[in-house]
């Protein structure tokens, strides 16, 4: 059976004749698929346009006054007379406490990303490569947990936080985001790790390495694409989150993140939406940087000589 890739997800290494092959695929390679026809380029470009259009519309509106935005469509602003203004951005950036809120968001998101990733990595490895009774049943429960609506956990968890006196503190949100993010993290990592070639671990065991060693030296490096994806998703989810911070940090102004501040640009009757257009982009910058920074990890999928002999 040549080259039947092991049925894992995001499989980086595929065995052919029993030995993994290092893959570095980043773009078209020689002699692979036929050169893309013009048709494909057109389709792709059309798709990109469709995907960008809504956001582009908002971007343009963010440079227009409220009156203009509600009078004519944003595409009219692309023709003279251009009536662009920086007022919206000025209003957003001049908001008192914006920088603090930005820092708070970082304070919340970074640990809330790192902790679940680390916690999940260990557990995922155990689910993937260790044997214990009810393993599959337990894991299925984990997936089932994905469905639990977050809103229903708010009261019991807040009570718990109140008892331990951490309500309103960053620790509360870190712990909460970890708990909420674990089911998906476990799902993703377990599937990925489960798809790693077993020969790698077998030979490691033969060499006398402990599971911990196998984890740190083999599973972890090989799982980098999955871990990178997970980190991105978790970071985005915690960065853009409103409800969890609202309830667990609540009115502790010191610790309020950006999302809370931005949501409040709009008054209770909906006025001020034009400010949200600018705010959306201000808050989007960092997640985009994170995404671009980590995205090269998606492309690689390497085992690269982990198996000796």
């Amino acid at each position: 059976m040549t080259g039947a890739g092991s049925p894992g997800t995001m499989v980086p290494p595929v065995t052919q004749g029993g030995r993994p092959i290092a893959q570095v695929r980043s773009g078209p390679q020689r002699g692979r698929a036929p050169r893309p026809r013009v048709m494909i380029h057109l389709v792709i470009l059309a798709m990109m346009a469709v995907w960008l259009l809504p956001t582009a519309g908002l971007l343009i509106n963010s440079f227009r006054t409220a009156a203009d935005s509600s009078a004519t469509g944003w595409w009219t602003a692309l023709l003279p007379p251009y009536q662009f203004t920086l007022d919206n951005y000025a209003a957003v950036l001049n908001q008192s406490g914006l920088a603090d809120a930005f820092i708070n968001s970082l304070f919340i998101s970074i640990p809330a990303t790192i902790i679940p990733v680390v916690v999940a990595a260990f557990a995922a490895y155990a689910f993937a490569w260790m044997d214990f009774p009810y393993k599959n049943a337990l894991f299925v429960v984990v997936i089932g947990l994905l469905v639990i609506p977050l809103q229903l956990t708010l009261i019991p968890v807040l009570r718990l936080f109140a008892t331990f006196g951490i309500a309103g503190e960053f620790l509360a949100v870190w712990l909460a985001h970890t708990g909420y993010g674990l089911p998906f993290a476990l799902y993703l990592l377990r599937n990925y790790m489960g798809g790693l070639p077993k020969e790698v671990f077998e030979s490691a065991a033969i060499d006398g390495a402990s599971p911990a060693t196998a984890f740190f030296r083999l599973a972890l490096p090989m799982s980098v694409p999955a871990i990178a994806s997970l980190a991105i998703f978790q970071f985005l989810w915690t960065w853009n989150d409103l409800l969890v911070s609202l309830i667990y940090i609540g009115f502790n102004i010191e610790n309020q993140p950006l999302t809370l501040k931005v949501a409040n640009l709009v008054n209770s009757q909906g006025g001020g939406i034009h400010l949200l257009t600018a705010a959306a982009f201000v808050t989007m910058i960092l997640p985009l940087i994170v995404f671009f920074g980590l995205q090269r990890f998606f492309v690689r999928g390497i085992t690269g000589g982990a198996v000796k002999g």
Partner: protein
Amino acid sequence: MSDLVMAAVVVVGIPAALVGYILGVEFVLRIFPQQRRSKVRPWLWILPAGLFVFVFLIYPAIGTLIDSFKDRRSEDFVGLANYEYVFTNRDVIGAIGNNVLWLILFTALTVGFGLAIAILLDRVRYESAAKSVVFLPMAISFVAAGVIWSVVYAYDPPGSSQTGPLNAIVTGLGGNPVSWLRNGSTGTYALIVIGVWMWTGFCMVILSAGLKGISVELLEAARVDGANEWHVFRHIILPLLMPTIAVVSTTMIIIALKAFDIVYVTTNGNFGTDVLANRMYNELFNFSQFGRAAAIAIVLMLAITPILVANVRRFREQEAIR
């Protein structure tokens, strides 16, 4: 302790602590006889995750289950009254219907588009840039997405200039502007489009990574043998990618069931667009009906059972092959 120092401590310390925990576990396991070690070890490895999951998810879920049989203040038991409400109340049934629409359309479109895009982009040089474009919506908060699409779907009365591109196209072609979100019939579809726009990037990313794991030689060999692209896709790529597709589909189904933010931020469930999660939010926080909210949540959780069963089967297969 200044915030920055504390943050640094946490960012470094927590992973270090967990690493220490794992190494400590190895240490502790030496107490046990060789036999028992591999039996005890897995439990210790999953313990931290288990604790988090228990405190934040399982414990509230159990509370929810119990509350679903109690009254609005969670004081007295009312048997199945809440479930009766869920399955007989016209609005809730409407929400269930919408969730089914989300289940089918949202999942099919996000996975389908994600796959198609992943495969197409694999062949072009500007893959990275294009991927970023499709993934961009995931970086946007739901509030921002709501504002973005309110503009896209904007309705102005016939005769005045349209501020929304969709209606501008419609009127440009000679038609009357459509109230996409608020006419009572296209609302849910309009919202599903927003959902697809946001989540296709997610599917694409995961499917693309899976795609990259398929051996180049394998595909080359097939092509050299004269297989056309469709054949390559159907008989090589698709089967190898199946597990990834299963993961992505499962996740998308669950997200469809839990769809809340998009609906909450745009229509709040009005105009026939309500979904269960939004209804649950309203019952819980606005109507002070704890029991009913709990019942809706339990219904949601039960709805996912078939998916769980399918996943169990897949794990067993996966392990059998190994």
